[in-house]
């Protein structure tokens, strides 16, 4: 039997060379240092990556808070019920959704399209009560229009924004997953109150007074001096700038402009007056303030008016009561 001698197979030689190199490397100081660095680098990367992720999540948290606060402000700005002037709940819903959508999906937003969100509306029964759970009635996002169309003046409401971010997307920048365990959920709630549109005629302390004096007739007409006074006691932002004086047919006898307050906080407008000519006979005169949306958004002839009769000419015969039995 002939034993074959000579150089070993090439694979064996390569393997031996690698083993020798590793052995020398492991015994060498540089090898040890390199191995340490290789071990430490992942730790350093992990620390830096975690810091970035914390920044990312905190930023997302702040974004959610901004979105819900601005959305709630939109409701208070445009869900403002007034008599005969309903607001458009569709517009309010549009504004709320656009604010949230834009805030979360901007390029400066965190996850952009990966984020999923919805909202929950709350009607707060008693805003003075500290309790929350037993003091609210919730409405899901699908009932937004229904909820918004039912808001009344001074209603308290809450708006919760729920944002779901795929956890893998947040942590590793990977595309989203449907696994519920891998979804990061963030919540924030804002509360607000529905404002009351100022309607002057609903103020109890806003009372026009009138004093009509008939002067001597000249040229077949009477001069009637009409005085009025608006007074108010509460702070009042909106005041009439025009006073209409009309006769019984609704014809304009005079239009007075610039009826401004002497004291915007509380006070009265003393001594406003106008002299009009009235024909012979009895004329019913009405003083109207704040119509045509100046004061009362209802644009109706509400209570911001007073009426009186002006008699010009010979005194009207006095009616004597008919004696009983005749």
């Amino acid at each position, binding site marked *: 039997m002939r034993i074959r001698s000579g150089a070993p197979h090439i694979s064996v030689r390569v393997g031996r060379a690698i083993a020798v190199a590793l052995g020398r490397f492991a015994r060498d100081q540089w090898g040890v240092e390199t191995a340490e660095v290789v071990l430490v680098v992942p730790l350093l990367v992990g620390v830096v990556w975690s810091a970035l992720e914390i920044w990312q999540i905190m930023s997302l948290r702040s974004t959610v808070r901004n979105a819900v606060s*601005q959305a709630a402000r939109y409701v208070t700005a445009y869900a403002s019920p007034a008599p005969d002037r309903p607001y458009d709940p569709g517009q309010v819903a549009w504004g709320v959704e656009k604010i949230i959508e834009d805030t979360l999906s901007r390029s400066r937003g965190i996850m952009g399209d990966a984020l999923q969100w919805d909202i929950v509306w709350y009607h707060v029964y008693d805003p003075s009560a500290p309790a929350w759970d037993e003091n609210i009635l919730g409405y899901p996002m699908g009932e937004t229009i229904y909820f918004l169309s039912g808001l009344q003046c001074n209603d308290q409401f809450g708006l919760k924004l729920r944002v779901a971010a795929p956890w893998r997307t947040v942590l590793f920048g990977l595309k989203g997953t449907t696994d519920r365990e891998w979804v990061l959920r963030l919540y924030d709630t804002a509360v607000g109150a529905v404002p009351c549109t100022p309607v002057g005629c609903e103020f109890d302390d806003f009372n026009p007074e009138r004093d009509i004096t008939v002067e001597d007739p000249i040229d077949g007409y009477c001069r009637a001096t009409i005085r009025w006074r608006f007074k108010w006691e509460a702070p009042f*932002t909106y005041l009439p700038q025009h006073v209409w004086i009309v006769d019984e047919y609704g014809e304009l006898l005079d239009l007075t402009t610039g009826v401004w307050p002497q004291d915007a906080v509380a006070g009265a407008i003393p001594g406003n007056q106008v002299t009009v000519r009235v024909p012979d006979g009895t004329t019913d005169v009405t003083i109207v303030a704040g119509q045509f*949306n100046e004061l009362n958004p209802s644009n109706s002839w509400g209570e911001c008016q007073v009426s009186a009769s002006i008699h010009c000419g010979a005194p009207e015969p006095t009616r004597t009561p008919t004696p009983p039995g005749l």
Partner: protein
Amino acid sequence: MKQSLQSRQKGAALVEYVLVLPLVLVLFLGALEVFRVMSIKQTLRAALKQELPCLTHWRDIAYGEEHECSIVQITERLTSTLDSNPFARRVGPVQLVPNSDEIMDTLLYGDVFEVIAEVEVEFGFLYPFEGGPTFTLRESYVTFVDSAPDYYELNNLPLDESGKPLPGEPALLPGAPATAEPTP
């Protein structure tokens, strides 16, 4: 032989120290830089939030006059607020987007818009010399044009230059009659 070994170890330690020192310095100064950036960013955010009422009440002329709400005035206030932060050195002026009254005037009641405040910042701790590299810090809010008395067709009080209601002067003083033609 022993002395040679000691000198070799000292040399190795020195080499390690020289290698590690820049890394440690970068980490330390980088941490300070991050803190500085966070501080400037927070100041910019707070300042922009303070200006949101001006921006949202853009169509309320009386409010704008009372609170000096032109874009130039808002930008000046933002820059001034940023200057009050001691870390905000070597920071450029604040740029506001939208950056002009004309653009803002195109917004209507209820419009949703984004307002951005951005500022160029030079490195402070990592590169403590003038004219170094810069980066941009940006803060933004998505907000909307708030309602105003005009929206509800209500009168606003006439205001004087200081924004206070004008003293009322009845249109017709007592004794100053106005005559109207009677209805036949």
